[in-house]
């Protein structure tokens, strides 16, 4: 009942807390960016320079990151792994979700239930057995190991999300198509998928960010520097010895977060829909 309160009360109870929240939530990003553009002499000298602003902005850290380390390679790996595993998971999930939602075979409800449970199994329980599996399959220390294991957490998530989405598509459309003699596959490709594009985008974006952020599998299954992903590479290769090069570390964090942030900024609404959808269903 906003119209019942005075302006100053509103300022105190709404905008002040909100501002504090925003400040706290965003400050680390600001600090990361500022540190990235600071030179060596500025970085540790708070008395001569204002710490909250780079007095002499420099690209030194970013240059070092891209030319003296294998960072570009890690970026490429992360991109490759995320794209492929997202694509694989999405295609599997579409089939699975459609089957569970619409074919209505015996026990489909239980399978739907167990998919949800599978989504709740966290990677930190699975990484040890998966490591032995990966080793047995002979794909240890390859990108393939990641491409094959990421779907284990992506598929349940995407399937769950798409199931909810498919449920909103009216049955009648399919019945019409069936009467017109369309096969199940034709229905899926020509009717369901075009209608489910927003759902597919939500699931895709979400899956992509999830695999971009994935850490524990990449840390466990990868040991050579050239196949590492960004999070693992930055943490294991840039952090060395007792002296931390905060400038280049922050540059690494910034450049690693930017791609997802940009992708996210294009699809905010889809992302939010995916997130709340996953919880609400």
């Amino acid at each position, binding site marked *: *009942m906003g119209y019942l309160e005075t302006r100053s009360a509103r300022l105190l109870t709404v905008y002040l807390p909100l501002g504090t929240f925003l400040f706290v939530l965003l400050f680390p990003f600001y600090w990361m960016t500022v540190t990235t553009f600071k030179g060596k002499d500025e970085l540790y000298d708070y008395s001569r320079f204002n710490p909250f602003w780079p007095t002499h902005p420099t690209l030194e850290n970013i240059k070092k990151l891209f030319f003296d380390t294998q960072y570009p390679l890690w970026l490429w790996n992360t991109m490759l792994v995320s794209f492929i595993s997202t694509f694989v998971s999405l295609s599997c999930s579409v089939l699975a979700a459609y*089957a569970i939602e619409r074919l209505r075979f015996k026990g489909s409800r239980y*399978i739907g239930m167990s998919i949800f449970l599978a989504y709740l*199994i966290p990677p930190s329980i699975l990484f*040890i057995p998966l490591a*032995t599996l990966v080793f047995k399959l002979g794909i240890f220390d390859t990108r393939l190991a990641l491409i094959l294991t990421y779907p*284990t957490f992506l598929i349940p998530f995407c399937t769950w999300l798409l199931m909810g989405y498919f449920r909103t598509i009216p049955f009648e459309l399919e019945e019409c198509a069936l009467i017109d003699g369309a096969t199940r596959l034709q229905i899926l490709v020509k009717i369901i998928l075009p209608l489910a594009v927003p759902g597919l985008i939500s699931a895709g974006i979400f899956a992509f960010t999830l695999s971009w952020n994935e850490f524990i599998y990449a840390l466990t299954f990868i040991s050579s520097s050239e196949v590492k992903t960004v999070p693992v590479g930055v943490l294991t290769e840039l952090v060395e010895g007792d002296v931390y090069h905060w400038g280049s570390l922050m540059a690494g964090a910034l450049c690693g977060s930017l791609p997802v942030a940009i992708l996210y900024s294009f699809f*905010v609404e889809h992302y939010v829909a995916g997130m709340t959808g996953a919880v609400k269903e």
Partner: protein
Amino acid sequence: MIPAAAILLFFLTYPLGLGVWLGLTDTKLGRPGVFIGLENFRSLLDDDVFRLAVFNTMLYTAVACALKLVLGLWLALLLNRNIAFKAAIRAVMLLPFIAPTVLTALVFWWLYDPQFSIISWSLQKVGIIDSYIDFLGNPNAARASLIAANVWRGIPFVAISLLAGLQTIPVTLYEAATLDGASRWKMFRHVTYPLLTPIIAVVMTFSVLFTFTDFQLVYAITRGGPLNATHLMATLSFQRAIAGGQLSEGAAISTLMIPFLLAAILFSFFGLQRRRWQQGGRDE
């Protein structure tokens, strides 16, 4: 299409079973083990570091989740008001959630630096503290710092999910409550809260699950130190299994996490049930 679902189940349940099995053997890195029954679990129960890790995990989960719920709910309530730039604020607010955890954890590590922490510097300038805070140096400070970082990352998720729930509550209910002379607190207590409980239950289940099994944040910031004070079950199992090569022991630790997860899942299940009943909807 059914095979797609079957393959998926196989790929998830098999590793899970294998994990439990590994916990019952004495497998080491590069050497297959033999069945030794509950030996690993027995030795773990006598292991001080493991018991400390269980305690830490509980503490970490309880405190972080409680804070996330309170702050997240508050933020959601704030965002649910008529405010300027709502969409923009909501979009920006999610950044901590989408940015890669490890990379933001690095930023926190830098913020917590013993010599160059900007937090200490600012507080000192303002005159609140005399000497720099040793964020990660002693056990309790390190725990608090990690919890803060976790809460920071978790708030947006809780807030956005609860906001979605808040938006489904009809405005008419609030109007009726206002006419009846309900105070702001009474409105929250008797209108918002009961209608929001199901969503809170689900969101908190997720939050508990992911906090309980957290790995990245701790591994990136403290690696379990100082003196194992911040080891969680997940980081300890990584340490034992991969860094130490004792695969079976690590697997046993992960296996012991399962009962807790089951409890959380059951909790979620009842949360969902109640939701269906509240909406007066049919049971599928």
